[in-house]
């Protein structure tokens, strides 16, 4: 009835700048405080802004895993017992008002944060008070931090994954009395772009490149001017992003799904994602999507039985989850570490043999090997039957092996614990009632919602009375964090991009568990409410080991084996954010063929992604 538009509408951007000079970026959230650039206070600041106008000492590239120098020029240098950390700073970067950045700025920044309780974004004030005794200027461009106790990860406060402590311009801030109330609207800034205009309600913000962009870290690193303007817009849900791109009003977006992405391919001829063809999306963000159990649930006490958890995992047909529900655009992982190239090398590859030999006991003395290494090949075979070409090694594209679809084994595991089937084949719990299960899912995270649907359908097919509870993000989050669920779709990675586990894994410490009904965010714990003391022991042992110490990886591997054996969560896939860009106006975005930097542009490293862009003409 309707045909898709074959023509392209005239771009109707909210600002009056030449279309070929502006790079338009979708940022998924609206910033109600657009002109407030005080990133040291807690506030709903826009996602991308901080990356292009602010600087941190270091940036961790999420694709390569490498440390990129921001305002620093050296790695963090610790003494032997991790009570001192020194750093060398760049001597060639300047604030946008022409004043040079020096050690004084760094010292002013950390001392001010430490002294001002109101400047506690991301816990900086509290963290610095806890771990930093003093800071010493050892030269115009070198600084030494003296720490209160051995802290091998002190630098992580200053190293950005998404964000970290941002440098303050001492020459301006020292004259401001009430810094927490200061809006920092007029700069000066250290990044390569300056805010020039914004929508009063925060839907869009326009940035202009500094004339002296070569005196910023991104300018120095890339040597490329980048677009003259960057426009950040929050268009809304996937539909609207697709429409915006089809109209030529958007150059890059993320958080989409394979169905709306298909529409982009049809309506924006120059659009593409990480791969030029199937399976398109970028699956390298360091996080996994999984199903978690609510160990605090009173209605599902059997979640404490390892066999019940395994039965639920074996009742899933993972090949169908990936193909039927995600169109094959997913990368599997069988443990809570994503299958990115770097982490696969550190964890998945070395553990592969262990997975293949892993056995679970069905009945006394009857062992079963649940791991099926051929799942990626099965998905590749499906893709080829659909007429797609698989771009490379199946394991590199579709991730690790997974657990076989073995409903018969699942049956036996459940029966062993007193579960039974009624005449209709539906499962009864050990106390004889129908087994009701609710899968909680976030409708805003499209990928998570896809497999939430899949799991609910498959467990229903398996005979469990499964329902799906789907909420918008904030409601989902509070439901999840207060433990009002049986099974929930969640996302996390047990390690950072470099393989270090403690900074992200510590939230699973049993000490942080709060009862169902209370919000886990009050302690910083995790919604799954696992109280296994062994997990606490792993975490405690990790604290004092440096992140680059080989024994750190060994310990993490042991912890992962323990987690997988116990099936404490059901990891499904690595993130697929479907970062999609249109090469109508700009080129040079990182791709599978040219993985220059990470395409995750809303992280701190996004500043390099933008700086690397070139107009299509040249």
């Amino acid at each position, binding site marked *: *009835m*309707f*045909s*898709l538009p074959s023509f392209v509408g005239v771009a109707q951007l909210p600002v009056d700048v030449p279309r070929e000079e502006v790079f338009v970026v979708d940022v998924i959230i609206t910033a109600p405080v657009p002109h407030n650039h005080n990133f040291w206070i807690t506030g709903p600041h826009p996602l991308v802004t901080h990356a292009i106008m602010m600087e941190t000492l270091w940036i961790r590239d999420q694709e390569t895993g490498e440390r990129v120098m921001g305002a620093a020029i050296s790695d963090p240098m610790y003494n032997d017992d991790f009570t001192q950390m020194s750093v060398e700073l760049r001597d060639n970067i300047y604030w946008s008002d022409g004043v040079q950045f020096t050690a004084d700025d760094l010292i002013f920044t950390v001392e001010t944060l430490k002294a001002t309780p109101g400047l506690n974004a991301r816990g900086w004030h509290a963290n610095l008070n806890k771990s930093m005794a003093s800071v010493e200027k050892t030269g115009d461009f070198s600084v030494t931090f003296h720490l209160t106790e051995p802290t091998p990860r002190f630098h992580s406060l200053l190293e950005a994954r998404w964000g970290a402590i941002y440098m303050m311009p001492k020459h301006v801030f020292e004259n401001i009395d009430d810094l927490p109330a200061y809006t920092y609207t007029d700069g000066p800034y250290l990044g390569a772009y300056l805010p020039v205009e914004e929508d009063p309600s925060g839907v869009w913000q326009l940035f202009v490149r500094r004339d002296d962009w070569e005196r910023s870290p991104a300018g120095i690193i890339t040597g490329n001017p980048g677009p003259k303007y960057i426009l950040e817009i929050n268009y809304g849900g*996937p*539909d609207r992003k*697709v*429409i915006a791109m089809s109209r030529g009003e958007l150059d890059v977006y993320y958080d989409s799904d394979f*169905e*709306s992405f*298909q*529409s982009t391919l049809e309506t924006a001829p120059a659009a593409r994602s990480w791969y030029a063809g199937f399976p398109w999306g970028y699956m390298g963000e360091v996080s996994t999507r999984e199903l978690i159990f609510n160990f605090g649930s009173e209605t599902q006490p059997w979640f404490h039985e390892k066999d019940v958890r395994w039965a639920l995992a074996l009742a899933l047909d993972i090949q169908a989850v990936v193909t*039927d529900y995600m169109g094959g655009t997913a990368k599997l992982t069988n443990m809570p570490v994503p299958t990115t190239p770097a982490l696969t090398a550190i964890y998945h590859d070395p553990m592969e043999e262990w997975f293949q030999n892993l056995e679970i006991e069905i009945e006394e003395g009857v062992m079963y090997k649940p791991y099926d290494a051929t799942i990626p090949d099965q998905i590749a075979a499906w893709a080829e039957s659909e007429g797609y070409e698989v771009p490379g090694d199946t394991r590199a594209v579709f991730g690790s092996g997974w657990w076989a679809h073995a409903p018969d084994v699942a049956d036996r595991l459940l029966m062993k614990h007193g579960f039974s089937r009624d005449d209709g084949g539906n499962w009864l719990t050990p106390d004889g009632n129908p087994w009701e299960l*609710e899968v*909680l899912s976030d*409708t805003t995270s499209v990928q998570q*919602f896809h497999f939430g*649907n899949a799991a609910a*359908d498959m467990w*229903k097919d398996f005979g469990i009375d499964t*329902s*799906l*509870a*789907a*909420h*918008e993000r904030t*409601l989902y989050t509070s*439901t999840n964090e207060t433990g*009002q669920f049986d099974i929930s779709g969640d996302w996390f990675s047990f390690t950072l991009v470099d393989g270090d586990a403690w900074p992200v894994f510590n939230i699973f410490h049993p000490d942080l568990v709060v009862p169902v009904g209370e919000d886990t965010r009050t302690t910083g714990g995790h919604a799954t409410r696992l109280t296994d003391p062994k997990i606490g022991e792993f975490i405690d042992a990790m604290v004092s080991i440096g992140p680059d110490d080989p024994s750190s990886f060994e310990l993490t591997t042991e912890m992962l084996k323990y987690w997988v054996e116990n099936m404490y969560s059901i990891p499904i896939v690595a993130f697929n954010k479907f970062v999609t860009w249109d090469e109508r106006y700009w080129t040079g975005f990182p791709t599978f063929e040219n993985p220059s930097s990470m395409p995750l542009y809303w992280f701190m490293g996004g500043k390099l992604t933008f700086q690397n862009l070139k107009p299509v003409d040249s």
Partner: protein
Amino acid sequence: MASDVLRATIRDLFRFSLSFRFGSIILMFVGILLLLSFFSPFESDDRRVVPRNKPPSQEFILGTTGNGQDGFWLLTFAIRNTLMVSGLAVLIGRSIAVMLGMITGYLGGKTDRVISSIVDSIIVIPRLPLLILIAAILQGEMTVLSLALLLGILDWAHPSKRYRAMILSLREREFTHTAIFSGMNAVKVVVQEHLPFLIPLLLADAVAGFLWAIGMEVTLSVLGLSDLSAPSIGTLIFWGNYHHALLRGRVWILAAPIAASVLMVVGFYLVSLSLSEYLDPRTRLSRLTMEE
């Protein structure tokens, strides 16, 4: 006896009122669809039972959805659930409203003043935000039934004011005084003399309530705040949007629930229109004159 009157009334209506003829045919059609839901080969929450996203064909006359459901059978469930939600909501809301309207209208005095103040205070609270808030508070507890209840208890303030005004004016009419002076008891006066005037109002009002309830059901579902596994006009649209039906050019997935919602409400609207015309004492008079 009563059934004879009813039959005669319906026959009259059919003969003289075009809107009744159209309206009742539409409602009959909707009713048949609703009844068909009881003979569906699928369960209402079955998914992945047919190929996904197939356009209408001989096998699937309304196509199939992105969840792998048969569009036609799914629609029959949706009509049933939506009618149930809005019907129950209207019933609950109007019952409260009629009761309050009568209490305040007939009793008057202090009772009237207190209740009216409360009603006025509730009327000024914006309902949609309130509804979204409560739906969010109820979270997973949102079922077809609780949604009906929620909509019902949010939709009585305005109608109760209208009924009160109507009763106040009836009470002052001459025939009320005559009836009471001639020794008729109050209940009889209300039932025999006042109800015929109230019913057209009630009918028109019920249809307005229906419209509101369906609109809210759709709104809440689209925002993901209702029971998404229970098919309804709203959840069908939610899932259609979720699988980007319009973006992907799969018009049939959204066209069916939209058409159904329009048909339902237009049907009720036309029937209520003809009924109130029929029941309105003034137009009844002119009709009788015409018949002679």
